[in-house]
């Protein structure tokens, strides 16, 4: 009872702070200095139609490298924590077979979902979307496969090889930017091209595709680890 009262008091306090923030909030009518710079210079300097992509991949590219590293860390910790719970190879769980609707549906949908994922990250510099979104879509295709057949074995070697190669090339492109262009992860090592074309914006589509593969592999390995753990 006392504990619930303390929780209630704490929530009331937080709610008071939030309502004060909400009341005092005034929407901007003009872009602030940082946003103004990005809005003015992105199309001219980097040739990327999607300004959010330009910020994520180039202006704040180092942060994105860190973010991908954090994701990699969390995927490997999930693998490490769950490693002892893995079921044995020969041990068979008796599962009810997946319904025909799910099996046929996943056969039809999985290639299309993968294709959509690739489309989303290849077009990350033109349309809403990008490597993280595309990678998540690819992992959702893997999730559909796992729902159809929970005993399906994914090659961890393949997933981790894909992930490491994407990571190495990502860093290599960053270093190439340091050598051939303005700085680490500068996208102007390749020609900028025409605004709005598929092959434009320098190295941005390349970097975002690598991020897409890496994120897709990381999410898939998390899903495979979670699915491969023994039922208690």
């Amino acid at each position, binding site marked *: 009872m006392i504990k*619930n009262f303390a*929780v209630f008091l*704490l*929530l009331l306090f*937080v*709610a008071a702070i*939030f*309502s004060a*923030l*909400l009341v005092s*909030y005034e*929407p*901007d*009518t003009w*872009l*602030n200095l*940082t*946003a*103004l710079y*990005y*809005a*003015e210079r*992105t*199309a*001219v300097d980097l040739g990327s*139609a*999607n*300004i*959010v992509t330009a*910020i*994520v991949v180039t202006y*704040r590219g180092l*942060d*994105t490298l860190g*973010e991908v590293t*954090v*994701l990699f*860390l*969390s*995927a490997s*910790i*999930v693998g490490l*924590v*769950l490693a002892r*719970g893995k079921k044995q190879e020969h041990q068979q769980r008796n599962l009810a077979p997946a319904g025909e609707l799910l099996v046929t549906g996943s056969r039809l949908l999985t290639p299309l979902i993968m294709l959509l994922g690739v489309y989303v990250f290849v077009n990350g510099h*033109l*349309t*809403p979307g*990008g490597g*993280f979104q595309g990678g*998540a879509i690819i992992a959702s295709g893997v999730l559909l496969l796992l729902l159809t057949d929970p005993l399906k074995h994914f090659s961890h070697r393949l997933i981790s090889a894909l992930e490491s190669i994407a990571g190495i090339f990502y860093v290599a492109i960053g270093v190439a930017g340091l050598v051939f262009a303005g700085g680490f992860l500068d996208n102007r090592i390749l020609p900028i091209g025409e*605004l*709005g074309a598929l092959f434009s914006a320098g190295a941005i589509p390349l970097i975002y595709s690598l991020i897409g593969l890496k*994120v897709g592999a990381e*999410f898939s390995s*998390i899903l495979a*680890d*979670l699915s491969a*753990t023994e039922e*208690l």
Partner: protein
Amino acid sequence: MAYLVMATGFILILIGFYGALTNRNLLRMIVAFTIANTGVHLVIVAIGYMHGRTAPIIDSAVAASDAVLRIIDPVPQALVLTAIVIGVGVTALMLAYAYKLYESKRTLDIGKFTELKW
């Protein structure tokens, strides 16, 4: 519009806090944290919203020359993109730890884990 989304975000954060503080079940706490996480995303996106402007993508509708006058702030969107991805990683970690805790005590009740209690 921005106020509506921001208020929804704050309410979601409060719901998440309430759920995390009152529920005894680990899985319910994880769900509550995810709800609070979503609320934070909504608040950050709402801060970047500006009335009468459009998405920060330059195409036939928004020319590069008048982008400054037509687009909303792209920085919060880039931040939320990062936050969503990290949120997924954190949720996966919480689920893995919940599995481990269940394995050790065969229960998901947080009240049964008294090793660190004082």
